[in-house]
């Protein structure tokens, strides 16, 4: 975490605390006050997506450690493909729903969900099951299919990607939660935390034609980083990714990885997928840029089997 980010975040927390105090709800404040997480990463195996998240987030101090009262939260699942949930091309809707519920319970003022889909936006939102799940949990599902929702930002220190147009909600909200689904990918070999960011920008074509791996790593330098990465490994597409053709491409792994370090998250995910981390170029690129730590063996990981 950069110093500036730290200052910003503590200022936000202080403000929230002050507001809460003035509202005479001391107990609630202490219940949801930030707790320093004991672990860098929590990995859970053997349960349903919602149950695994309940357990995992508890180990990290509860959602209150990441979302303060009155904050606006944007949740970014992968819902880029016009396929049904069983084909595991999009994040599991049950998981998305539970994450939103946790955010609202922690006192989030508003939770937004969007993705710049690859297939037709309306169909993706509907057929992924996420729109319905998110709305039922109380989130706002926001369109992302036209350029006017995007605003240009600078990426200081980007090697190839120096500017990008990002969805306005990413800029207007306080907390960003990344919920990618782990999948095979035809050219980068894996899509997970870092690559999920291709769904918050408008011009993906530029990434593809300007060293895709470097652009993925560069984007992660942008100041608005995810407070939390929740990796859906419940059903994992191990071939024909990232879209998949049939159920034969999917292996049920019944797992989940929750981490604040998305480079570490991607590294752990690559091992789940059984791909040599070195072959996924953007992971080492991001590590070099100081975005996160790919040497996960040195991290403090909590492993839970259900």
């Amino acid at each position, binding site marked *: 975490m950069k110093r500036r980010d730290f200052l910003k975040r503590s200022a936000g927390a202080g403000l929230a605390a002050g507001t809460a105090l003035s509202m005479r709800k001391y107990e609630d404040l202490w219940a949801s006050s930030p707790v320093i997480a004991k672990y860098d990463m929590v990995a859970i195996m053997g349960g349903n997506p919602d149950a695994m998240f309940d357990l995992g987030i508890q180990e990290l101090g509860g959602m209150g450690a990441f979302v303060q009262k009155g904050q606006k939260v944007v949740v970014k699942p992968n819902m880029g493909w016009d396929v049904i949930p069983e084909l595991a091309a999009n994040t599991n809707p049950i998981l998305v729903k539970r994450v939103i519920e946790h955010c609202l319970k922690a006192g989030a003022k508003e939770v937004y969900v969007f993705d710049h889909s690859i297939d037709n*936006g309306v169909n993706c939102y509907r057929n992924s099951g996420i729109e319905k799940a998110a709305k039922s949990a109380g989130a706002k599902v926001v369109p992302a299919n*036209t350029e006017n929702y995007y605003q240009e930002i600078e990426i200081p220190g980007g090697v190839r990607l120096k500017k990008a147009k990002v969805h306005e909600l990413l800029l207007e909200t306080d907390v960003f939660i990344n919920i990618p689904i782990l999948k095979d990918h035809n050219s980068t070999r894996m899509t997970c935390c870092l690559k999920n960011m291709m769904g918050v920008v408008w011009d993906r074509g530029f990434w593809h034609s300007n060293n895709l*791996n470097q652009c993925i790593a560069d984007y992660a330098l942008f100041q608005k980083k995810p407070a939390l990465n929740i990796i859906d490994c419940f059903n994992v597409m191990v071939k024909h990714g990232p879209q998949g053709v049939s159920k034969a491409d999917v*292996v049920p792994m019944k797992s989940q990885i929750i981490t604040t370090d998305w480079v570490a998250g991607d590294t752990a995910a690559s091992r789940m997928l059984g791909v040599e981390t070195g072959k996924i170029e953007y992971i080492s690129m991001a590590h070099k840029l100081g975005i996160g730590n790919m040497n996960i063996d040195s991290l403090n990981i909590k492993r839970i089997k259900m």
Partner: protein
Amino acid sequence: MRSPNLRRFRILFSALVFICFFILFADFKFIVPSKYVSILLYLQFIPSAIKFCNLWTLASAGFIAVIILTLLTGRTYCSFLCPLGIGQDLFSRIGGRLRKKFRRYGYKKPFIVLRYTLLVVTIIVTLVWGIYLLTLLDPYGIFGRFMTYFGKPAVIIVNNFVAGILGKFDIYTLSHITVTKFQLLTYSIPVVFLLLVGSLSLAKGRLYCNMICPVGTLLGLVSKASLFRIRFDEDKCTRCGRCSIGCKSSCIDFLQYKVDVSRCVSCFNCIKICPDKAMLYGVVRVKKKEHQTDNEKRRLIAGAVMFLLGLPQIVRGQDKSAPIPQKASTVKENRTTPVCPPGAGSMEDFNNHCIACSLCVNACPNNVLEPALLQYGVAGIMQPVLNYHKSFCTYNCTKCTEVCPTYALKPLLLEAKKLTQLGKANFIKDNCIVKTEKTACGACSEACPTKAVYMIPYEGNLLIPETNNDICIGCGHCEFACPTTPYKAIFVDGNPVHQAAQKPEDEEAKIKAPVEFPF
């Protein structure tokens, strides 16, 4: 019958029909289920007639019902069912508000030569040469194009405006939609017709229907034998002439107590206007009429037809839309055949049955269909063609085949559509980012729904696309996704006759789920 309720009923009914058609074409949220589309379109004369020629079933015999209706009630079709006719009534009303003079029609002689020549020419051209002239003149098709080119964009602009305001208040029930760009060439014909039909209806009532429209002329002929029609009650008439002034078809000659039944569209305005209740709608015996020929008008028709046929040739040289390249690709795509929509069967078949009403263009949720310029040749102008630079044909969709009123697009089950090969993917390695830039891309393969485009090892850690045309369905997602300009590194060339693709491979995955955490 002389009740003013006749007119009220007509207005109510036609308003309902018009609203239905408006919603059908302007339905940018894709709410209207396809099954209602066929009900609404069943009685549209030309689409139904073309569908009937394709199918020979009762389910497509709506136009016969229209003929029977005309034999019974006169040209009620033009007032009650034709969206273009109803739209013109709306225009006339606006015209009347603008200038009182526009509402004073009076009896005019019919343009007999022009009408019948156009009808005969249309029939002959359609039978001998193809559907081209009918496409231009079919009132339903004209209405469809008006909605596609002007109506729907207007609705979307309003939607975007409202969505923008709502978005400021954190409400996202409406989303922003990209408006189709204005293209001079494809818009030229609808613009000409909008000016023609618009100005005629604004000032002259139903002159377009009674001078140019081949369906109007044909039904006018049929209505000469109709059972019910407007007539004078000569005992009551005081020859005040109000009926004639108020007749938007200019077909009432009150001095001679005559109503030109071939032009009367049964709007019942005269019944309401008549202060003496001397106009009535009832059973009448047929009276014969004289015919005259007018060479001047014949020349005009010949000229007009030549103009219509020549127009596409005149505007041919104006297409230049290539974008400025960021990083130029070098090899030009060798396109031989345009890609026509699923359900077309073959391009020839499709071109012979499509009246370019553009309903499919509106129904397409992915906005990949657009009116053709000259991809299908002169005869196929404005017929829908897939533009993979603009979008792609989405895998889980059969919408266009469901709404087509003429059966030019035959209904396809989703499973069949997923195996219908519209064209084949062609990979141009020399344009590919992986080769030219030596960096990873794979946008095409990522987008491919069947993995007909897949990646094979290339230099170092790189992977490069390869195609398998046995399972390619020509959906164009690869071409759309490919980031190279001005030429794509992968493009779909249409199949003149659509083919059956093989099913994509379905092997079990070799990778097993880890039992322990691998980290």
